[in-house]
């Protein structure tokens, strides 16, 4: 008599595993998906992570506690928090976010050892790293300029900026001078070059470099440092009896012949004039 040996039903086990596995996945994906609770900042979605980083930056502006800011950023598990904050600062600058936000991010990024572009505009604690070498001996012809401030020349040739301090992403936009006014009033600040730069939606554009040249000298200032006037506003204090050339670096033609010779107000007071230059995008060309 021989006992018949029963074989293990492997096929049934396999079928069960496959069917059960499919059902399990379906349950986990659709019926009862993962729902995170009590997360740390590192598990936030990208938008909320940016909001969190901005908030850490603004809190740092108040308490100036770098270690605390660092510990608040640590849960984000970024490889380099300085780079993280720097990139967000530059992104905010590019997007034309509120100047206060860009300033907060740039300040924290710098404090962490980062080198955001936005810091050149807003923090005032670091020198621009992409400035050209000082230009010398390029102003020989300036005293003979005859154009008036009200009529800026279309083809200035006296000064050719040889380098640009403006990042490439800004050079793509072409702007033109849409208004140039001389102000000579008793109750208005005197001797300034005031630059307003607006985008196509008439919003001020912060972070743009404006180069000022006068005999043997050169200076650069940026828009956006006085957001209470306009996000796209920047100014420069002139010396008396100089001829200035103003260049919105990489974005518009230089404006020559800004003359700081004293003018007379309505009440007869002699003071330096203030010039207001307004830039806006060039209108589309006619077909």
């Amino acid at each position, binding site marked *: 008599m021989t006992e018949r040996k029963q074989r293990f039903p492997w096929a049934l086990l396999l079928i*069960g595993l496959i069917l*059960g596995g499919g059902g399990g996945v379906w349950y986990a994906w659709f019926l009862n998906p993962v729902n995170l*609770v*009590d997360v740390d900042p590192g598990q*936030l*979605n990208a938008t909320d992570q940016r909001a969190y980083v901005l*908030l850490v930056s603004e809190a740092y502006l108040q308490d100036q506690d770098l270690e605390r800011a660092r510990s608040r950023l640590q849960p984000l598990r970024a490889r380099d928090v300085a780079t993280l904050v720097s990139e967000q600062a530059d992104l905010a600058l590019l997007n034309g976010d509120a100047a206060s936000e860009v300033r907060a991010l740039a300040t924290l990024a710098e404090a962490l050892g980062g080198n955001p572009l936005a810091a050149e505009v807003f923090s005032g604690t670091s020198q621009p790293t992409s400035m050209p070498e000082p230009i010398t001996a390029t102003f020989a012809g300036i005293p003979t300029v005859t154009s008036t401030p009200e009529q800026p020349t279309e083809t200035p040739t006296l000064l050719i900026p040889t380098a640009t301090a403006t990042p490439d992403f800004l050079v793509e936009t072409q702007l033109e001078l849409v208004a140039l006014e001389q102000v000579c009033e008793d109750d208005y600040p005197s001797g300034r070059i005031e630059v307003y730069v607006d985008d196509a939606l008439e919003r001020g554009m912060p972070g743009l470099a404006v180069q000022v040249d006068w005999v043997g000298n050169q200076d650069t200032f940026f828009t956006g440092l006085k957001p209470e006037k306009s996000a796209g506003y920047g100014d420069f204090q002139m010396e008396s009896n100089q001829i200035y050339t103003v260049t919105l670096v990489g974005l518009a033609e230089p404006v020559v012949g800004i003359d700081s010779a004293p003018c007379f107000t309505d009440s007869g007071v002699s003071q330096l004039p203030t010039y207001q230059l307004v830039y806006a995008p060039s209108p589309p060309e006619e077909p």
Partner: protein
Amino acid sequence: MGRAFLTLLIGLGLGALAGAIFGWFRPIQDVSAGINELHPGYKADYTVMVGAAYAIDGDWDQVQTRLGRLEEPDPAAYVVVLAEQYIAEGRNPDDIRNLVRLAAHFGYTTPPMQPYLPPSPGQAVP
């Protein structure tokens, strides 16, 4: 027959377990969370930072937007409770001041908050 049925059941059970574990660890949906899902400790620190930012910029609309992200049913009550908790626990006075400033703007100040109120005249104290 019984043995075969039992084997099939075991296979289904093991498969379902393995499938569910796989599905939870490899979700097909975005499982990143919003600020409302933060751990209560992080939520509290977030609120402190909102208060710090408010102390800098005074932008109340921004405060409301930021506190709204917490999705607390009553943001004012949440801030008041948190401020009192910080006071009771003897936390950082600057943090307490930031929270009390928010609570005061909501119109709620309680006796424990009095020492931390900013010296702004005309603040309503219930």
